[in-house]
């Protein structure tokens, strides 16, 4: 029986690689999203004085 380990390795290896890439991209996406949101929130709090829009979001 011919040795097919190369093909099996290429298949499952690339599959594992894809999973890792996707999980890594997921992490990067989440980090970037949190960063962006924090900056947005910081910006809004800075404008809290005399800015009705920010007052609307910050009901305190």
């Amino acid at each position, binding site marked *: *029986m*011919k040795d*097919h*380990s190369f*093909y*099996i390795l*290429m*298949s*499952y290896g*690339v*599959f594992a690689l*894809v*999973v890792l890439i*996707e*999980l890594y*991209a*997921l992490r990067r*996406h*989440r980090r*970037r*999203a*949190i960063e*962006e*949101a*924090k900056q*947005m*929130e910081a910006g809004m709090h800075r404008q809290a004085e005399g800015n009705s829009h920010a007052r*609307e*979001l*910050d*009901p*305190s």
Partner: protein
Amino acid sequence: MKASDAVKEHESGPLWSRYAAPARFFPLAGRLVVPFYVLAAILGAIGLYIGFVIAPTDWQQGESYRIVFIHVPAAWMSMIIYLAMAFWGLLALVLNTRLSAMMLQALAPTGAWMTFIALWTGAFWGKPTWGTYWVWDARITSELILLFLYFGVIGLRASIDDDRKADKACALMAIVGAVNVPIIYFSVKWWNTLHQGASVSLTAAPKMAQTMLVAMLIMTAAAWAYSIATSLVRVRSLIIQREPPSTIADSSGGPQPAFATSPPGSSGK
């Protein structure tokens, strides 16, 4: 509308409408992520064990047939995810909900990866079995076209700056694509049967041993759980990007650290 009002509005009513607000869905999704990943890992381990250890060696194809345990689940998922995308697209257009559109956006990359894996593993299964890396058979060709359809939705999303506009455009594209998938598959099948010639049809597979089928089904379930978990993580990131920060709060200790500072007006409990 104040953020707390937006959240309160959804506190009564049927279950689905309660979680239709992205801010409410956020903690729910967070609680589901780890369980689904764990499920995927366990099912995957069982499936691969049965597939590699228990299932017998195919007398015709040797060991390489075992690639089918990743190839077929990936192919099935690629189609299921596209249908799911179209479903969310329909909801997004009909109900005009943000969350449906975000689910669509979250599913697309995973679906595209599944399609890629199906094509790649198909090639490496084809080489030892039929001698070539690529076969213009109906199903593989349809998978390739499906990949282009995924790229279309993803590309469209990337080219539109306005979030709501992109939501609706991608929803429409996903629906149009989904309607076309059966037609495309039918036409490719027609084209393929006419040009059969000497090549072997991938669909004329020998009857599968019981254990092989079980392993394949378990792997499909694993792929399903993985896709759900991944889409939920992605949709959470999208919610963080798109929704006002003070409306979002992790009500319970999710697997990820609770998001940002604890905002004054939220009532996620």
